[in-house]
């Protein structure tokens, strides 16, 4: 959290009992203060309630109904029981889990490796630029490029044939789990740049003196990274991993554009299941049930992760 919060002036947090401030500070807070505070907070609170809390509450409410957009009838937990009984939903949860693991291993892992490996090199900036460049391309455009690469007899198959590697030619987007793996790789190509940038920011905030001290003590290479650099990157690692977990749990655009969740529902993720139920089948209640499940998973994962990682050192 120290990354984003500006330093807090000492006088703002000093206790009212502080004898050094006793003469200057008013003896009690003015009555208008709470009201003024509420007035300043009100617009933000109203927007959050209106745009986030109310729709979410309505989504929860809607998940208890059989709702086709025209008529609505109460069905209790039927949407949830049907959702958990559907084999396609199990597949969707499994794919989403693959995405979380894949995203942590590849874009985050590679991002860290590239940032640490290149930040002190002379031509490191060039290497980083090459990695970061795809980040400037939109997700949809990336998907179009990778569709060209991965479709049958597409760019990748042609390249493999050219190199005499015919046995490796595959239906990259048509066979599960290969299609999910390839989509994670396509996302890695695009998303690693963002992780590199964040880790570089983290590296630049490490005081050089600690690294110099470690080097004077004889640390270098892997030992220097693992014992000195990586621990000091912890605040940024927490942010990057947190963002990646949430992003991968709700992955949608790449899958929609590359495989449309198919063949069948083989590569569907939770966000796609939610979309299919709601917008393709017009089963708003079932879609809302998946949305609630997805939200619970995202919030629970984020809470569990951040609670563990942001625990005070002396706590």
């Amino acid at each position: 959290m120290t990354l984003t919060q500006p330093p807090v002036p000492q006088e703002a947090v000093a206790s009212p009992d502080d004898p050094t401030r006793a003469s200057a500070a008013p003896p009690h807070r003015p009555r208008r203060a709470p009201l003024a505070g509420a007035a300043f907070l009100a617009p933000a609170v109203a927007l959050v309630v209106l745009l986030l809390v109310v729709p979410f509450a309505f989504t929860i409410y809607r998940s208890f109904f059989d709702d086709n957009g025209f008529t609505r009838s109460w069905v209790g937990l039927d949407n949830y029981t049907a959702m958990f009984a559907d084999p396609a939903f199990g597949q969707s949860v499994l794919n989403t889990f693959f995405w979380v693991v894949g995203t942590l291993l590849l874009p985050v892992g590679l991002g860290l490796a590239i940032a640490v490996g290149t930040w002190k090199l002379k031509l490191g900036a060039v290497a980083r630029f090459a990695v970061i460049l795809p980040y400037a391309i939109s997700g949809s455009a990336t998907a179009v490029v990778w569709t060209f690469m991965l479709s049958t007899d597409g760019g990748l198959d042609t390249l493999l044939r050219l190199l005499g590697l015919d046995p490796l030619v595959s239906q990259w987007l048509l066979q599960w789990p290969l299609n999910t793996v390839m989509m994670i790789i396509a996302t890695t190509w695009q998303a690693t740049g963002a992780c590199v940038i964040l880790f570089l920011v983290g590296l630049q905030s490490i005081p050089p003196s600690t690294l110099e001290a470690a080097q004077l003590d004889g640390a270098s290479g892997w030992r220097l990274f693992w014992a000195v650099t990586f621990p000091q990157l912890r605040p940024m690692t927490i942010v990057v991993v947190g963002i990646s977990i949430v992003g991968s749990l709700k992955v949608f655009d790449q899958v929609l554009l590359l495989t449309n969740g198919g063949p069948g529902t083989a590569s569907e993720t939770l966000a796609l299941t939610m979309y299919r139920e709601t917008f393709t089948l017009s089963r708003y209640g079932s879609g809302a049930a998946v949305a609630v499940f997805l939200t619970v998973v995202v919030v629970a994962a984020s809470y569990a992760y951040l609670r563990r990682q942001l625990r005070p050192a002396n706590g």
Partner: protein
Amino acid sequence: MPHPIPGGPSMTRRTALALGGAGLLTATLAACARGTDTRPSAPGTVTLNSDNPTWGPGYDAASDVLAARIGYRITSRSIASVANYNQIIRMTAQTNSTTDLIKWTNGYRLQDIARADILTDLNEVWDDAIGRGWVDPAQRASFTYEGKAYGVPLYKSYYAVFYSKRAFAENGIDVPTTFDDLMSAAQTLKDAGITPFLAPGATTWESEIWFMQLLASLDPDYYAAVTTNQASYVDDPARAAMDLWSTMYSDGFFSAPDVTSNDLPGLVSEGRFGMMLYGTWFANTLLASGLTDDDIGFFRVPPHASSTAPAVIVESGSLSVPVKAHRRDAAVDVARNWLATDVQEAWVGFLGDTSPNPAALPKSDLVKDLAAGIAAEGPTELIRYWEASPTPLVEGNVQDLGSFMVTPSKAHGESTLRSMEARARTEWKIWDAA
């Protein structure tokens, strides 16, 4: 305390916040205001919402004739994403923010929204059009729910085989008139190094195309029965269709299932295109891409056995009038005149496709010959699979068929049919209970 930066009058933070807040409020209020697309249209016009952004000039051409007939023109607007369009229509057609006319599909997708009482009964319009000979009466059933018609045919397309005239000529292939001819034509093309059929559908709606066509060729009555819950997906005709489809795959007659129909013009120019079974509406795209009647021809897939009655798959869109349309009477009047021969001639003159009005023919010989053949032979017209059963059943089954196309073994064909049958039991129960 003096101002740290001396100078003229400067904006305080409070003023900036107030200005920003006021701007945001104004923008919010403006966003809440009704857009021009949902207000009543200008006098002498009716609005039409559609999911096809390229059809604007066609509506303009038809409007020129409509204006002369009834004094109304169509102002069209479109939402290119089909999923977004469906949701927007489902929401707005219940309110007075709707357009006067909407493009929709026929069959069960039309019945689905007709059940909500948001569409105008157009029975009188149909009676009138049939009386004038403007439309085939057999089409009425697919626009009707519980005795009321809720739309008129916006367009009419057939499913036929697009073939390369050059590839056929170079390999001495005549246009097939029997199913065996079709198979031997495919074999000849394959032997010549051309993939016989371009067949997309791994993850798209197009997976239904060969399934419905093989059923229509094998047993048209069964196709009509299975799509209306009068037969099972694991009955013999469906098994025979999947077996045949699987055999055609093992014979190497199909492209990879993740090709797209847009690959066709490129393959033609490379001399690598053979055939593609598709909707005749695609002819317009091909002609626009520079191909001509000399490059591409059409033929219908013949029945599998000579004893089977000929059948053809028909796709149609619906022109419907929401109950809450601002200019509802005028919209009904447009629907009443939409099928008139002169309006349809202008419309299909743009589309380059067949018309619901058998007297209106497009300029392209490509489709004209097909329409003439259909008029002469009078095959049974079967509604396309996409509209032939309740939406969730079709959507799920189409996904199963796409999966089959990726792994087209006979065993997978069997399991695909079992999955489709299980879904049919569930979805028909839901449909009947609604």
